């Protein structure tokens, strides 16, 4: 899955996801990628978040929505991302997944669970040539 957040010069926020789902899924299965608040969520007054991982589990917790709501309540992107991931891990300690969270000032962070130093890719004024960052999982 690719899950992406972009904020343009006008401060407008958008999020998108694209995935071919799980290997050997039961025909008809849909993952979290196309579900609002699960694979991604954006609110122009707050920011956006986007997820990847075990969609059958992650969709049950609307992690992207939760992360955006946490930022609305004043959390940093880092804390918001960790909260969303930790909520899932509380119920599914073996799940694998990750989230990126970005606020409307362009501050961003990622969090993950069950992965090995989750990598994510960023282009911003501070990284105009692009950079791949890695975050250790909670």
């Amino acid at each position, binding site marked *: 899955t690719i899950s992406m957040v972009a904020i343009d010069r006008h401060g407008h926020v958008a999020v998108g996801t694209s995935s071919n789902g799980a290997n050997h899924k039961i025909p008809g299965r849909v993952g979290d990628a196309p579900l609002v608040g699960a694979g991604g969520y954006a609110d122009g007054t707050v920011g956006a978040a986007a997820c990847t991982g075990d969609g059958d589990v992650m969709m049950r917790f609307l992690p992207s929505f939760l992360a955006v709501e946490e930022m609305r309540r004043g959390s940093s992107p880092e804390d918001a991302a960790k909260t969303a991931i930790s909520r899932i891990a509380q119920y599914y300690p073996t799940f694998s997944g990750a989230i990126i969270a970005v606020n*409307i000032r362009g501050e961003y962070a990622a969090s993950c669970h069950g992965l090995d130093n989750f990598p994510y890719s960023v282009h911003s004024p501070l990284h105009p040539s692009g950079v791949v960052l890695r975050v250790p999982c909670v």
Partner: protein
Amino acid sequence: GVGLPIAINTWPFTNATATAWNAVYRRNLSAIDAVELGCSVCEREQCDLTVGYGGSPDEDGETTLDAFIMDGVTMNVGAVGALRGVKSAISVARRVLEHTQHSILVGELATQFALQMGFQVENLTTPQSREMWQSWRTNSCQPNYWMGVEPDPRQQCGPYQPLSSTSDRFSQAEYSHD
């Protein structure tokens, strides 16, 4: 903010990020354009075989696509689930956003929508995805996502049916005892 504009995505799919960045930074396009363009790169490049055609075959060997796009200004959403036979899932999702009052279309009927929007139907299976599927079949369809069915999904391929009540009782007797 000093951090704007920005393009960020999961995994080291750097060509996708660079394309989205180019859209918002150099071409002065909108965030929604950037997201569509960025994700489209991965659909074409089959990023990690987890995006686009030719990856993650289902139990019948078919690749279907899920995609979603959301405008944080209008809170408008377009999405497709289990889209069959169309490679540009994120762009179809954007057509759902822009040309319908719905949020998500699924399956074969989403394909019919895509056709109306001018997309082509193509085979999403590749030799590689067929080989992945055949290897899984050869391995007794392991792993899979079934439970509470017979024959035993941990050992055999389907088709499956729900465990009969007799089987349930047998199962309880077999596994729940002192």
